[in-house]
């Protein structure tokens, strides 16, 4: 059980060394993608929020088919443009088309094969 919060300064560092098991147990939603945006891991908290099972999501491109509402310059473009990234943004998810205010944390480190999107209800 990883004792690390959504706002933890060292979250990206922790995640880079964490196992999927650890990530699955996090108290906030977390999407692990490769650098092209394809979903590598979808944790339990996020699966519950979106109403989507992990096995339906893993392997698909997050920005295009899983969370298309993030396919804009506020989210997707940031991952595309910035190799090193650790930013917060207030956003609205359209889970079942009901506007759901969330707080997002976008994380990526240059050289890493992964990038992370953390989700917290607000």
């Amino acid at each position, binding site marked *: 059980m990883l004792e690390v919060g959504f706002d933890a300064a060292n979250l990206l560092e922790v995640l880079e060394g964490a196992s999927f098991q650890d990530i699955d147990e996090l108290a906030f939603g977390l999407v692990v993608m490769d650098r092209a945006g394809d979903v590598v891991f979808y944790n339990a908290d996020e699966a519950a929020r979106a109403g989507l099972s992990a096995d339906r999501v893993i392997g698909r491109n997050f920005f295009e088919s899983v969370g298309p*509402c993030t396919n*804009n310059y*506020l989210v997707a*473009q940031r991952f595309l443009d910035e190799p090193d990234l650790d930013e917060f943004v207030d956003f609205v998810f*359209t889970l079942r*088309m009901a*506007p759901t205010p969330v707080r997002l944390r976008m994380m990526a480190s240059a050289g890493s094969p992964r990038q992370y999107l953390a989700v917290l209800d607000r």
Partner: protein
Amino acid sequence: MTKERPQGVSAELEGLLQFLYVCPVGLVEFDDAGTIHRINPEAVNLLIAAVGVTPFGNIFDVLGASGAELRELLTAAPLDAGRIVNEYLVRPEPAGLRALSLNVVRVSSDRVMAMITDVSAMQLRSSLAEALASASGANDAAARVCALTNVLLGAGGAAVYERSDGGGWLCLGQSDELVGGGAEASDGSGGPSHEAFQRGAIVTVRTRAEVVGRYSKWAAHHAEACATVAVPMFGSQSSEGPMTGHVLELWFRDDPGFDRQYFNNLELMASDISRFFERARSSELLRESEQFTRRVLDNLATFVGVVTTDGVLTHVNQAPLTAAAITADDVLGRKFWDCPWWNYAPDVQAKLERAVHRAAGGEIVRYDATIRVAGDKRLVVDFQIAPLLDDRGVVTHLIPSGFDLTERTAAESERDQVHQRLSQLQRLGALLSAAAFPADVCAAAAVVVKEAFAADRCAVGFESGDQLKLFTLPGADEQRGSWTTIPLPIQVAMDGCTLATPAAGIDRATVNALWGVVVEGMASSIFVPLGGDGTLAVMHASSSTLRESERDLLDAMSHLVSSALERARLHEAAEVDRAEDTRALARAEFLADAMARIAMVDGVAARLQMLVDLLVPSMADYATIEAPDQANPVLALAHRDRTLIGRSAQLGAHSHITVPLDLGGGMKGALLLELSDVDRRPFDAHDLALARHVGDRAGILLARARLYEEEHNISLRLQRALLPDQLVRHRDVVLTARHEAAGPMLEVGGDWYDSFTWPGGLVGLVVGDVAGHGIEATAAMGRLRSAVAAFAPLIGPDPAALLDALDLFMRGPNGTRYATACCAVFDPSSGELRYSSAGHLPMLVLSPNGRTSWLDDAQAPPLCQLPIDHRPSGSVVLERGALLVQYSDGLVERRGEALDVGLSRLEEAIRRLTSVGLDDIANRLVDHFVASHPIEDDIVVLAMRYDPT
């Protein structure tokens, strides 16, 4: 947040939800108050992109100004209406790329659904199409695109670059709000160079360092930019081969929210722009191609026709008809050579007819032909007439064709002109190199220049010191050139001498007026100053201007002529120096000769006349010697044209010299020389110098002549004083005497005579001659006569003794070097005459019967020449009425004549004077001799008639 998973029957609903969820159309469900209840991801993305905020809460607030309007529309719409708003356009403020279209429908009494579509691309393309449609040319299009991107894409600045042929980038146009949209010329180096352009990818640069480093040209602006975007517009042909096309570059101060949609729109826009440029280029190529084709057709197919083998024109294309302003009916069916293109000259027709016959024989004939076209103009064509053979090789028709050669002919003509000019220059150079003197240069230049410029008149002149020489071609005789020489004004005054030339009103204005005469009747004249004080004038009767090439030629020719003229002037100056030496010698000879001639005449007046006679015409046309203070001031005058003597001396003269002349005896005068003949070279300084010398030398001769004249007068008066006032009076003899002095410039001699009486009635007669002239001879004569007069009473009536006494006297201090004398004593009572002669001429006796006899005995040497003890004496008895004549040698002696001739003349003269009274005899004798011969010496005659009572 529910975490239930869809189960069983709800699976269908789940599917429907998923359908709506991924629907590529934005869907938003909200109530009448605007609160969003459902929204799909596409709607979120569209709204985020359009308004820049995450859509949550109230849709009307999200949409800003458009939302308020939408709220009113919604309120106003009836509740039962299905569709409330159709294609409602939302353009966020400030205006940008994004544009959304909303279709709003009422789903239920309290729910409304909006379908949102992105129409920014349509909007963009429509604006773009509108802007480009009105663009004129690539640069204008680029400027419009840039302006549009500033508005629609929210860019801070934009530029359109074109890949230039050299591989660089040419800025077609740009807008930059920071510099007021002014165009900034690009040298190509500032254009995009990133390799990504070549891959056709949009490049986004977001760091300041990169911006500044890569776009140094825009560095100042880009330093404030948060992003720049380069949009390649390579069109269809960019995939392979060298990169062509355009690049749209944008930079942003504020992040416009780059996303896929944004870039999609950029790409759309780029593709539209690219297509525009391609179309523009295509149409340009097409236009060029059309023009080329038209040119080809216009120029090549000048003339195509069909002619029968016997020369009848059966077909012809439109071009030659149009050119000649005729119709096909005018020419078809006629012999080809009778058509208007050819029938302006028989030889042209004949040549064509021959060509037709040769072509009919199977030959292709080709030559440059000149055809007549509209307005009776001529057109040179490359003409060909070729036979058309059938499959058996028989000539069935002839095909004439002609191509306009006007341009080629013009070029050849231009080339010919260049050659012609070169050859004219060469000819001029050759002629000039052979021209030794300025006159030759002028003549050569006039001939070549006149020909080279087809001038109607050409004049070349130069000024040398005292004259203007002008060669005009054609000259007065209309063909050959003629020379005009105009003396230039000169004034010299020194030492009382003046040289004025010309005097007849030829001054600077006259010289200029001469040039005015040269250009008379000419419409245009070009004056070119030459070196060596020359001027070249090219004149045309009709107004004409020189073309640039002709001006160049004139310049070149002027330079040649200038240097030749300067060289010739130097050459001439050297020649003049040599000629001047010759002239100086001639002047010296003239001076010596003139002075010798003047010295040979006696008397001032004669010498003055001789002087002017010598000066005219050799030196002047008119010469006078004037003494202003005399009653009649003109002392001597000579004129070349005798008929003009007496007219005003100033009249018609163009050159004057005045020098002072010492007339002797304190008289001051002046020698005036004038030239009136315009063909004669005016006086120059050398002439003035010569005139001064003549004046000086003549003055000396005149002074001397005047001295002689004065001395002569004194001698004459003295001689008259010394001769006896009267002769002896005796009742049986009559005596008469005459003394005649020599000419005015000849010295008075020493001739004398005297008579005495002795007691008893004896009469003594003496005639003598003292050698020498002048006052001294006269004085000696006086002394000798006094001695005889003194001796006679003492010695008595013995002629030999008297001469013996004179010998003694002559040896004394009062004697003289040489003298002759004849002494006679006559006894009237017996008629006996005794006599003795000391070297004197014999006396002559004329008897009353007319017989003459010379008393030539009793001769002894002249006085005091030899020691003589006693002189001889002779005697003769004179008849009553006999005449005795004693005389001096001046009466009978002539230069170059034997004495006997003179004596015979005297003898004859005496005989003819028998009837003359004795009183007149001496006078008549002298007059007779003086009349026949000028007096060369003094003359004394003493005559006695024996007339006893």
